[in-house]
């Protein structure tokens, strides 16, 4: 346990030092985040107060939808970037020869990756509430449960992207899928009930839909765990299936890469 904490500290420290030494990147991220919030705020104003999807004001609706969607995309991208960078710089092979088991290494690295993106999400939501006056009525327990399940889901997506990158050198395919097809199907900017019936059914098969829906209900409408139980159960189901599958996929892809000598191919 101590050894795992020690390694986690080492990974967090590496990522923190690397990110703060990218000073311009730090500032640009924050500026970009504010610009995005302003765009959504004025979009909601232009559409007018009468548009209240699922009974929620449009700006907070957008705030949660885009914030969470960005969290998923950026987390997946971050996993991919980590693997690609390790392949490019040659650290991939060296990391795989340390005393830390590859699966443990990926999970510990993912905690750091997700923590960074979670901080961005919190800043995004807090700035939306504080600067642009989005009304928030949070049920903290429900928010916490949604957060844990969303993290499990983000972990599964990130690990899948990493496995795709190791196997086919094409983890970007998953990020492309998230960025192109899933954003409009997952209720990010409008309720999925506005979609044609067939697409709405498709949207119900996407785990992100439940994460966004449950977060809106818990964070904006103050709904309790029991009243959002159906979304939570769907999220739990997806996590229980996708997470072990993603871990198995990564373990298999690393084994195959060792066999084929393609660990550092990119």
């Amino acid at each position, binding site marked *: 346990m101590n*050894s795992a904490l*020690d*390694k986690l*500290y*080492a*990974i967090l*420290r*590496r990522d923190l*030092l*690397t990110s703060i*030494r*990218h000073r311009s990147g730090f500032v640009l991220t924050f500026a970009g985040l504010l610009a995005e919030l302003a765009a959504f705020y004025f979009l909601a104003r232009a559409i007018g107060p009468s548009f209240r999807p699922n009974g929620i004001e449009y700006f907070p609706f957008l705030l949660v939808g885009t914030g969470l969607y960005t969290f998923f995309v950026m987390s997946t991208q971050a996993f991919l970037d980590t693997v690609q960078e390790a392949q490019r*710089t*040659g*650290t991939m*092979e*060296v*990391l*795989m*020869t*340390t*005393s*830390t*088991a590859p699966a443990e*290494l990926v999970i510990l690295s993912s905690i750091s990756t997700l923590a960074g993106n979670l901080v961005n999400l919190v800043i995004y939501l807090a700035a939306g509430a504080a600067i642009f006056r989005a009304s928030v009525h949070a049920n903290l327990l429900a928010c916490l449960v949604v957060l844990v399940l969303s993290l499990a889901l983000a972990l599964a997506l990130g690990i899948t992207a990493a496995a795709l990158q190791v196997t086919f050198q094409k983890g970007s395919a998953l990020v492309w899928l998230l960025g192109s097809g899933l954003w409009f199907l997952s209720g990010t900017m409008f309720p999925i009930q506005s979609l044609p019936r067939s697409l709405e059914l498709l949207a119900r098969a996407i785990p992100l839909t439940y994460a966004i829906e449950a977060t809106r209900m818990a964070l904006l409408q103050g709904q309790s765990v029991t009243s959002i139980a159906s979304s939570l159960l769907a999220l739990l189901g997806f996590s229980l299936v996708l997470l072990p599958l993603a871990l198995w996929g990564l373990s298999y892809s690393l*084994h195959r890469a*060792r*066999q*084929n*000598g393609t*660990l*550092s191919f990119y």
Partner: protein
Amino acid sequence: MDRVVFESVRKVFRHRPALFNWLGRERGGETVALRDLSFSAAAGEVLVLLGPNGSGKTTALKLISTMLLPDSGSVRVTGFDTRRGAGQVRRQVGIAVASERSFFPRLSARENLEFFAALDEVPRRERAERIDQVLDDTGLAEQADMLVMKFSSGMYQRLGIARALVKRPCVLLLDEPTRSLDAATTAHFWTTIRTLARQQATILLATHNFAEAAAVGDRLLLLQRGELLADRSIRSGESMEELRSFYFHTTGEVDEAAGMAHRVGRVR
């Protein structure tokens, strides 16, 4: 007991052309990197792997480090099979790879070593002292707190060696460790290698440098196209010229450098 044992190890790399290969000229096929290679290395022994490019030296080192898995045969390190006991093997093995830039560029040399030391489970209380020691041994003490993105090739190479040494492995794998080093650092490094061997570390060193082989080696394996051509001891006091002549005689390659030396001598 032998620390490292190869038993009839075969490794083949298969190349599959890209899906739309009519646009390019990529060829399919396979490269046999190692053909039924068998050898062993004992504690305290410095085993030099010599051979032309593509002879399988780096593949052999990568198989020991668990970066690669054998197609058939077995590789054992301190009794653990690299397939079934990869975790135990990785705890015993340190590797300095030829690719120089396998570090985190925005961390300093010391921060990089601290990171890898944590992953290699070096006890926290010993970490600072060991890192100072390997930075000294590799001549990087003065650059310890410089970001490695500012390092030269030679400094990267030294840091790679430092990383391999910091976990104090009982099996040390070195792939052309002195390729980019200056003469003084190289000489100091050879002394470090002999000291480690006296402390019972098993060292496998892949090199093209006959002087290095003669200076630090106890035994040499000569590989060509994945096959073992020779496995013999290096006599105390055996010169680099003797090794060189043995190499060219056994591999059948043409020693153009000798001809060049002869011509240079004639010009003088």
